[in-house]
């Protein structure tokens, strides 16, 4: 029962990370999006920003969970995010806050984690040197409330990330980036847990502001399995071995930005008795998004994204999302 609870909790938390707001930052470990109102994942990426901005976004998402081919939950989510990026000479500051709430309809006896509520706060600083390198420091706090099972229907957890990263530009168009995250997880149900998350990626950026531009980025994140046993009245906790791959492709001409992004997360788990059904050893989360935005040199920016998510465990969650972006570039 302990291993079951620990793994379920972890899947809960990964789902929390996988909800709407994380999709905002797909493929921004090395370089920022050509949409300046998008938040970054690694702080050094913000050092390559070309303008100051403020942006808001609103999302609406819906889908369902199927277990053995039958729908057990209907999932309806809504959320919003606010991002601002400022720079003073070679100093860059990025701040982001996003929140996401999910309404679950279905029989709560269908055990299985569902993220009910998530708040994501990020603050990133970065210094740029000679157009060659950027170094960044950042902090990120994610608070989540998850449904774990019928008797633990509102499990709260907080994840705090301390981040350091570097990004190097070479041959005018290529970028290489590395980042390290120290993650601390705490909650009112399971024991605390700490682990390391390594990030790395490559990017290519062609074109100058005002002209035809192309940005491609491929990046990875990896963390090993970490486990803590139960203490007192709090149950044990485990972070499964996790790998995440990000891909981003953006093409901009005449101020019109076409963006395609994808993210795939794989977690090695041991859910041998999960739901009393067939056991699984991997949970996979895939996200795909495509959007169109108007990005002027300065002034009002507007756009939208369509996003599809799928989580494959011994159940399958499928959701689709519509997100609108509104911002101002200085």
């Amino acid at each position, binding site marked *: 029962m302990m291993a079951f609870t620990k793994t379920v909790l972890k899947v809960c938390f990964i789902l929390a990370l996988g909800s709407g707001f994380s999709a905002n930052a797909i493929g921004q470990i090395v370089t920022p999006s050509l949409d300046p109102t998008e938040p970054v994942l690694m702080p050094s990426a913000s050092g390559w920003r070309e303008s100051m901005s403020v942006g808001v976004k609103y999302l*609406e998402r*819906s889908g*369902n969970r199927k277990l053995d081919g*039958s*729908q057990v939950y*209907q999932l309806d989510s809504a959320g919003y995010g606010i991002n601002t990026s400022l720079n003073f000479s070679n100093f860059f500051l990025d701040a982001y806050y996003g929140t996401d709430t999910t309404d679950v309809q279905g029989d709560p006896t269908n055990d299985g984690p569902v993220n009910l509520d998530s708040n994501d706060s990020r603050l990133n600083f970065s210094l740029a040197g000679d157009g060659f390198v950027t170094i960044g420091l950042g902090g990120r706090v994610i608070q989540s409330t998850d449904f774990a099972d019928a008797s633990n229907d509102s499990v709260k957890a907080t994840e705090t990330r301390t981040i350091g990263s570097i990004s190097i530009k070479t041959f005018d168009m290529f970028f290489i980036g590395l980042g390290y995250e120290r993650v601390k997880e705490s909650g009112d149900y399971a024991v605390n847990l700490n682990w390391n998350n390594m990030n790395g990626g490559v990017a290519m950026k062609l074109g100058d502001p005002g002209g035809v531009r192309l940005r491609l980025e491929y990046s990875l994140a990896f963390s090993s399995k970490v486990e803590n046993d139960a203490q007192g009245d709090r149950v044990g906790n485990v972070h499964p071995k996790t790998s995440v791959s990000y891909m981003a492709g953006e093409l901009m001409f*005449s*101020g*019109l930005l076409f963006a395609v992004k994808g993210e795939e997360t794989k977690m090695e788990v041991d859910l041998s008795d999960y739901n009393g059904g067939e056991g699984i050893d991997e949970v996979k989360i895939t996200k795909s998004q495509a*959007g*169109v*935005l*108007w990005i*002027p040199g300065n*002034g*009002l*920016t*507007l*756009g*939208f*994204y*369509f996003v599809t998510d799928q989580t494959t465990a011994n159940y399958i969650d499928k959701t*689709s999302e*519509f997100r*609108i972006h509104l911002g101002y570039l200085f």
Partner: protein
Amino acid sequence: MSRLLFAVLSIFLASTSWAQVVIPSLDKSLPVEMASAVSWRIGSTIGIGTTFAQDETEAEKVDYYNNENAVLMAYQPGSVVGELYYTPVQRMNDWDTSSDALTTYTGLGGRFQLAIRGENRVSVGIGYGLDQADISSDTVKKNNYYEGSFSLRMLGGLYVGAGLQRTKLTYGSIGTLKRNRVVAGVALLLGNPMGNMFRTEASYKLSPEAQTDDEALTLSKTSEMQLSVEVLFADFLFSFLYQKTVMSDYNGSSNAYNIENNRYGLGYKLGSFTLGLYRHAGSEMIGDYRLVKRKYQCTMSFNFI
């Protein structure tokens, strides 16, 4: 079940059925369907319209009734354009193909669209729309959608556009359906806004099948094709619009639900005012059953820079 499906269909096609996709109509009181098309409006507009309809099946005939009243406001202070379209009065007939009977119900609808035009060459827009119908005293159906779209202007007067609508239909306590509707089109606009103009547009919309898990509510795969031609000559506006909608495998049978509509229009432009009169003639068919629809529509708009 056929009754339920038709009611569902009619609200999906309610207040948006005549809207243009890529660029606005030369009759400025008519709304656009894709938000990005709002950017191609010339100036700001206040418009009103009213429609009277007649429905007839082999078994029943509902003589001319006030089908819809509408108001449109489009404001364009610069490169940002907003459009509000509201139909506070909608009256429609639900066609029960099992008995050929028509049952009247009322509703309302509206939508708001916001778009930005860049360099007079590109447009990006977002929109939200809502249609609501009171099917019975205890059954209300709502169809709302979010939309994102973009369009490009090339070679002076050629426009291409595409977008996606994420629709959500709630039918009383029976269930909720969600699906994505892809919209795309191409248009050609020639002439001088202060003189003679020619406009034509072709568009296509595709929605996949959607079904609630308990199969209580179903929407078949739906394709919609629309072609319109407008000529503004010597202050007279001549227009024609053809529309065909096909719902395949309707009601789980091999019968498709076919809807065909033709709209003929004559208008007159007097300075900043435009007056339009339209005649709609259409039919809806499922197998051997047929519903004939006739409409007369009057529009009036005031345009200002």
